């Protein structure tokens, strides 16, 4: 009897589905505990007034109504969108351009790629953010260089119109990882296509337009989505370099959420903002995916 139970237990433990669940268990726990439950419970908190200390109190859609009338919220949304629209396309163009230049293989190509990749490697660090802040400070290097060509020193972080520029430049500067993905994509395009185009008398520009771009379109889609999401979520650089200022000119969405949550301890409001962020991100991703049907080509047609 005891042996029977034991062998049944053995059989159960070694059954393929059991093994499957055992190995998937970390994901199941993680998904439920650290993704689903927090998201759902934050939906609840978004309808409450909650400051972490006192018990939350239900206030209906008040937080969402407040968002509609919150000028700082609208400004942060506008600033973030402007930042995304200005930084992501330039970053991708730059990445593609350099990737194409580096397809010419020489002994030094690997070294060059590393060189251009360095900013991406360290760009997310606080060290580089601090350096960036000093580079663009009033007496910083950038102003000194401008001074050489006789341009008056710019108050990068004191001028509402200028403050976004150092942050955009910093993002574009880190084009290295997009470049590497483009380089891998370029390798996939068969050289025979270009030879055929050359025989047909197409110049380089036409070859780029009709071979490179379509061939690369799945990679462009991937880069576009990943970079858009990560730019939309920018936090650290602005937090360190501009603190959102001057006058909220660089107060990115993530920064404003952070302030509401951890400066004002307005967790209900911050939860509502997180949900709005989720909705916006889903919408943007969806739009990019939907539009991709018209411009992404795949050989097998899937």
């Amino acid at each position, binding site marked *: 009897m005891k042996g029977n139970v034991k062998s049944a237990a053995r059989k159960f433990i070694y059954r393929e589905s059991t093994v499957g669940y055992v190995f998937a268990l970390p994901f199941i726990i993680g998904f439920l505990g650290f993704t689903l439950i927090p998201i759902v419970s934050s939906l609840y908190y978004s309808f409450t007034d909650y400051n972490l200390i006192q018990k939350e109190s239900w206030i209906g859609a008040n937080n969402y109504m407040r968002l509609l009338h919150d000028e700082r919220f609208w400004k942060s949304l506008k600033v973030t969108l402007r930042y995304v629209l200005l930084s992501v396309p330039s970053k991708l163009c730059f990445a593609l351009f350099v990737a194409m230049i580096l397809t010419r293989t020489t002994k030094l190509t690997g070294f060059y790629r590393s060189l251009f990749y360095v900013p991406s490697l360290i760009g997310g660090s606080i*060290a580089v953010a601090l350096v960036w802040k000093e580079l663009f400070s009033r*007496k910083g290097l950038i102003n000194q260089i401008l001074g050489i060509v006789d341009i008056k020193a710019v108050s990068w972080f004191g001028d509402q119109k200028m403050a976004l520029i150092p942050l955009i430049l910093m993002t574009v500067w880190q084009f290295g990882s997009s470049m590497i993905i483009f380089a891998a994509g370029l390798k996939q395009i068969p050289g025979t296509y270009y030879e055929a185009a050359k025989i047909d008398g197409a110049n380089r520009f036409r070859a780029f337009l009709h071979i490179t771009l379509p061939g690369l379109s799945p990679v462009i889609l991937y880069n576009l989505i990943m970079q858009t999401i990560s730019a939309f979520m920018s936090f650290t650089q602005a937090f360190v370099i501009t603190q959102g200022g001057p006058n909220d000119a660089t107060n990115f969405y993530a920064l404003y959420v952070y302030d509401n949550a951890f400066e004002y301890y307005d967790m209900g409001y911050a939860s509502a903002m997180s949900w709005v962020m989720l909705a916006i991100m889903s919408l943007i991703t969806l739009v990019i995916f939907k539009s991709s049907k018209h411009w992404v080509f795949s050989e097998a047609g899937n």
Partner: protein
Amino acid sequence: MNSKTRKVLNRYIYHVLILITGFIMVYPVLWMISGSLKNNTEILNDSLNLIPPHLRWDNFARGWKGFGGTSFRTFFANSFIIAGISTAATVLSSACIAYSFSRLKYLGRKLLFTLMIMTLLLPGQVLLIPQYVLYNSLGLVPSIIPLILPHFLGQAFFIYQMMQFMAGIPRELDEAAFVDGCSKYGIFSYIILPLLKPAVITTIIIQFYWKWDDFQGPLVYLSKPQSYTVSIALKLFADSSSATDYGAMFAMSTLSLIPVFLIFLFFNQYLTEGISTSGLKG
């Protein structure tokens, strides 16, 4: 000028132009390193000069002292502990989950896989507030637990990457081992895991360096200087002393980048492959 010399000339122009652009690209880094060996006056008034007039190593000694009675020794140790544990946990849990998703058949696998892809696209920022409220209600704030616990439960990015790698491991190997009496557990330990080595190395270096650079996590979850990581410490160090001591700030900034540069130097190839197979933020 005949066509051959023109070709050679073109080649030189190509290399020179790339080198100039590359130099501009890494200039901020060189500027930081040079700043770590200058004093304040030299940084402010002689900023274009990359070569420090005197090598002021004392910047490092002054910076290393840190602030509030806690030295950078502690901050580096904290960063290594947090990044080390998180990385080891990510490798193990993600490999298990990837094995389950790519090699085993059971009810609900497709659903789980779909959920995993969804979390892959879900930006971490969206989860920050909800997770904070959860950890707070569990009494885990402030502590390092929120920073490492999620890594024991798999990271979608690496699960996906490992699954792609596993697709290239021939199933015949699994079958042969199965015929020889190896259980599904054994197949993971003796066949899949050893063959997964390149993907594991990629995971180790990328996860380590993400965690090393992480700023918002420690900012939200740590509150005592004794538990600060290097990234938080650097920011506070700059806030407290930037008005007076740029040299020390650049010295500590330079030190904070050394682990990342070492990884890059030794594992460059794995890093590049990891990025091009599945993409890398930044």
